[in-house]
């Protein structure tokens, strides 16, 4: 690493810069006087910019760090109470977890956006809703300009001429170079966070940044090494304020970047800049940005190999998404071909479209085990296994309807700056909170393997072999298997999803199809549809904590597996069988997102042969119809030691559910889940 970059990197690793943050917010909070919430939001951003201190260091070329620790809520306590009483609130009611249209902002500059607003605002009466929306958007651009001006002055003061010079031009105008494009991106990303937006994804960086990169490389203005250095700096910068970004756990901040895949024109995107990004991530070892690679049947082995080098680092990414499954699935859901081809992932793995979608792909989660257990509570009522399955499916369908009903009457805070960053909000004089071209909701599907394994155990032990009666099994579950050790051992020994055994895998296929059927044809109040998924998010903990013992041998309160993965309480034949099992469901029908997760002991990567073969394995998964995969290189002993001696493992990074974070910064329940995942891996 170059000395300059090393300095920035060290500054981040030491964390001392955090002491430079303002102890108390300097925001006067006058914005509450504004009644119109869109304009109020814009005024809050203006106040935040006003209160921010431009903070640069001599070694920065891009820089920027937050000094405001907290942003005041948009609503007063009283207003919030009223809203909570009247509406359904999701994730704090802020817009987030969507993908901005960085491309159009870069192409036209914010001046382009302003011109568009100027043109549109003339169509509306002063004080009308549309007028106010556009006016608010205009104010946010002014705020971003003020922020840029502050940083320009600071750059001048410190003698960072190139930054001062770049800020002379961006964000108002389209960048003249890759460097300027990076500065503009940093400013836009920084502003979205300062605007209280959540889970601000980075999107298809190698698509919207490529023209600037390519032009500079072609003209000789920039060498590849310089591009790598600048990209690395931009990556480090994304980490400085990450502890301030809201999420369920620290690290859950949504800064996912997507590389490669089919372009809107149908051609492969993966380019030299994609490689530069992978190299930057490889040399930095940081949790942000979280790298995703889009792949497909035409993806070369080399791409998988580069990705696997990152896996080997133990960062828990890249995550792979399979275009051959995802694009047709999105089109089936109603996305236009060009949009489907342009998909990215949201904070974790949900498939969303940049610029034109305000999908809420994580609005709630189905608990497969809960649905199963509700039926199993009446086990003696069913003479045959198909009768039990029919009851399970009846419950599942009913749960789908409940989930759908619970999404009604949603309230989302307006976000004029996020609206500026979308493709059509200005043209339609509409805040993004009021929807976009796509307004679909997605439900996760947590605990699939727990449910499928449980049903397989019931089928085998109660119906096929008649080894236990329904009453005995129910009593054992009630007693949390205490006093039923033999029965428990038989439950554990029953077929498990992940061993390529149709006995249980076929049950998983039925369950997932039923989930898809249960949502089919339903419309949400914003005109969108409901998407079924394979993710778990934090629901593998939330939905399992209070759930009793299950017939697969899981004790009461034990977690499900995260995402789309085999259960934690059994040893499996191996990854080939796991891949077979988990590609059996009709993945195109449950394509909201949620990866198959595979854990590998880090010694597997001890020489290049291991790395090559893991790359081949991912390719195998993709070529056999897997939709999404995420791999971990991990060592249980290291994690145990980190629990005992956190001071020795400050930079230990682990994958949690859809994101990577620092092990030390996780609650112990999440730490223990990761350790448990690895019990059978040695």
């Amino acid at each position, binding site marked *: 690493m170059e000395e300059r970059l090393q300095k920035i990197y060290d500054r981040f690793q030491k964390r001392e810069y955090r002491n430079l943050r303002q102890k108390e917010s300097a925001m006067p909070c006058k914005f509450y006087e504004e009644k119109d919430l869109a304009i109020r939001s814009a005024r809050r951003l203006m106040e935040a910019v006003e209160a921010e201190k431009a903070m640069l260091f001599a070694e920065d070329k891009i820089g920027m760090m937050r000094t405001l620790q907290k942003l005041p809520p948009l609503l007063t306590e009283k207003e919030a109470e009223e809203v909570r009483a009247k509406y359904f609130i999701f994730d704090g009611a802020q817009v987030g977890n969507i993908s901005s249209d960085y491309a159009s902002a870069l192409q036209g500059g914010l001046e382009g956006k302003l011109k568009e607003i100027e043109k549109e605002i003339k169509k509306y009466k002063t004080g009308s809703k549309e007028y106010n929306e556009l006016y608010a958007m205009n104010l946010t651009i002014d705020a971003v300009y003020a922020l840029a001006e502050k940083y320009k002055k600071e750059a001048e003061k410190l003698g960072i001429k190139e930054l001062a010079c770049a800020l002379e031009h961006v964000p108002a105008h389209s960048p003249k170079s890759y460097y300027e494009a990076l500065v503009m991106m940093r400013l836009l990303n920084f502003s979205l966070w300062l605007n209280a937006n959540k889970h601000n994804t980075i999107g298809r960086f190698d698509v919207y940044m490529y023209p600037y990169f390519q032009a500079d490389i072609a003209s000789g203005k920039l060498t590849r090494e310089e591009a790598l250095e600048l990209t690395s700096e931009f990556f480090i910068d994304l980490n400085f304020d990450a502890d301030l970004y809201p999420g369920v756990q620290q690290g859950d901040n949504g800064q996912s970047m997507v590389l490669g895949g089919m372009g809107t024109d149908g051609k492969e995107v993966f380019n030299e800049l994609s490689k530069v990004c992978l190299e930057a991530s490889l040399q930095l070892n940081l949790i942000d940005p979280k790298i995703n690679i889009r792949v497909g049947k035409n993806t070369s082995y080399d791409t998988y190999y580069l990705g696997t080098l990152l896996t080997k680092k133990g960062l828990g990414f890249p995550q792979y998404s399979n275009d051959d499954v995802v694009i047709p699935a999105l089109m089936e859901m109603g996305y236009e071909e060009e949009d489907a081809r342009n998909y990215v992932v949201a904070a974790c793995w949900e498939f969303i479209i940049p610029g034109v979608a305000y999908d809420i792909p994580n609005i709630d989660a189905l608990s497969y085990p809960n649905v199963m257990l509700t039926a199993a509570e009446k086990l003696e009522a069913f003479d045959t296994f198909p009768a039990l399955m029919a009851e399970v499916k009846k419950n599942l369908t009913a749960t789908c309807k409940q989930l759908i009903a619970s999404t009604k009457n949603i309230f989302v805070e307006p976000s004029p700056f996020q609206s500026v960053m979308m493709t059509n909000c200005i043209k339609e004089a509409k805040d993004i909170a009021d929807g976009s071209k796509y307004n679909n909701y997605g439900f996760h599907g947590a605990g699939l393997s727990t449910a499928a394994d449980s049903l397989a155990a019931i089928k085998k032990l109660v119906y096929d072999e008649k080894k236990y009666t329904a009453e005995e099994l129910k009593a054992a579950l009630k007693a949390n298997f205490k006093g039923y050790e033999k029965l428990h*051992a038989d439950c554990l020994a029953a077929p498990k999803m992940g061993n390529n055994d149709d006995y249980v895998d076929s049950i998983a296929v039925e369950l997932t199809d039923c989930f898809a059927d249960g949502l089919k044809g339903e419309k949400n109040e914003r005109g969108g549809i409901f998407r079924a998924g394979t993710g778990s998010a934090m629901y593998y903990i939330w939905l399992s904590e209070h759930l009793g013992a299950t017939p697969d041998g899981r004790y009461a309160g034990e977690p499900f597996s995260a995402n789309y993965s085999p259960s934690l309480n059994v040893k499996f*034949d*191996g990854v080939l069988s796991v891949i077979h099992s988990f590609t059996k469901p009709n993945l195109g029908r449950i394509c909201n997102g949620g990866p198959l997760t595979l854990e590998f002991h880090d010694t597997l990567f001890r020489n290049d*042969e*291991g790395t090559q073969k893991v790359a081949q394995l991912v390719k195998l998964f993709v070529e056999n119809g897997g939709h999404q995969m995420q791999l971990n290189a991990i060592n249980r002993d290291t994690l145990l030691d980190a629990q005992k001696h956190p001071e020795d493992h400050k930079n230990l990074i682990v994958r949690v559910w859809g994101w990577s974070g620092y092990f030390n910064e996780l609650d112990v329940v999440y730490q223990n889940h990761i350790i448990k995942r690895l019990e059978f891996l040695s």
Partner: protein
Amino acid sequence: MKQAIVFSIEEFSVYDGPGIRTTVFFKGCPMRCNWCHNPEGLSQKIQVVKAPNGCLHCGACEKICAHKDGCVACGNCISVCPRGLIRYSGVAYTTKELFEKLKKNSDYLKQAGGGVTFSGGECLLYADFLHELIPMLKEIGVHTAIQTSGYASEADFMKVISVVDYVMFDLKVMDREKAIEYTGRSNEPILRNFELLKKSGVKFMARTPLIPGVTDTEENLTAIAEKVKNSGALGIELLPYNKMSGSKYTMVGMEYHPKFDEKSEVNANVELFRRYGIQAKIM
């Protein structure tokens, strides 16, 4: 129908031959290599073993045990473990059963240029079994390989060599006395079988575990290089001593007593082999 005792089938084993492979570990070995990291593979008998991680020390397994003087693998303790940590090591398979099991992933193995590797223990203890099974796998297009210490009768060795696609052949200790001291067996049958392998025309790779002060001495490595030179071997794979070797002994109720200094660095002298024109790779 032939039968074999298998103690593990490992999918996606990456260091056991070309491509993505499934490795079958047969139970039982005539050798007693001092550094063996797979003590489960020594006895040909089915055993009861307990996984080292996750034990609650609840005492349930000890309470039910009726053979405290010596385990007879009755398996009574298996079902009482609340964590499911105790299991049988060793499953008897007929050729048909093992074939069916391996066939389930054969599509992936073929697609990824891999196949099935038979290891152990010593797979040649099951020469008749392999002689029957390997052609069945080849019939459905699956590449086959063995990993062997080379210690077997000429007849058994040839039985397998005549059908298998690829051989990973261990050359451990070349000195006759030291071989007995460290591997518990004479190396004469091994060296004889190595000559047979050379003549067979089967593709093969030499393999040497690098044990500090035992196999990794300049003298031993030179002797191995002399042997491998012009033998037709594709090269040699050097496997540095695994410091975790002793970790599985308690699992099978044994103790690990290395007669060498575990902590000293291994001499992974790739250069020595290169001087002989041998492709050497550290695994």
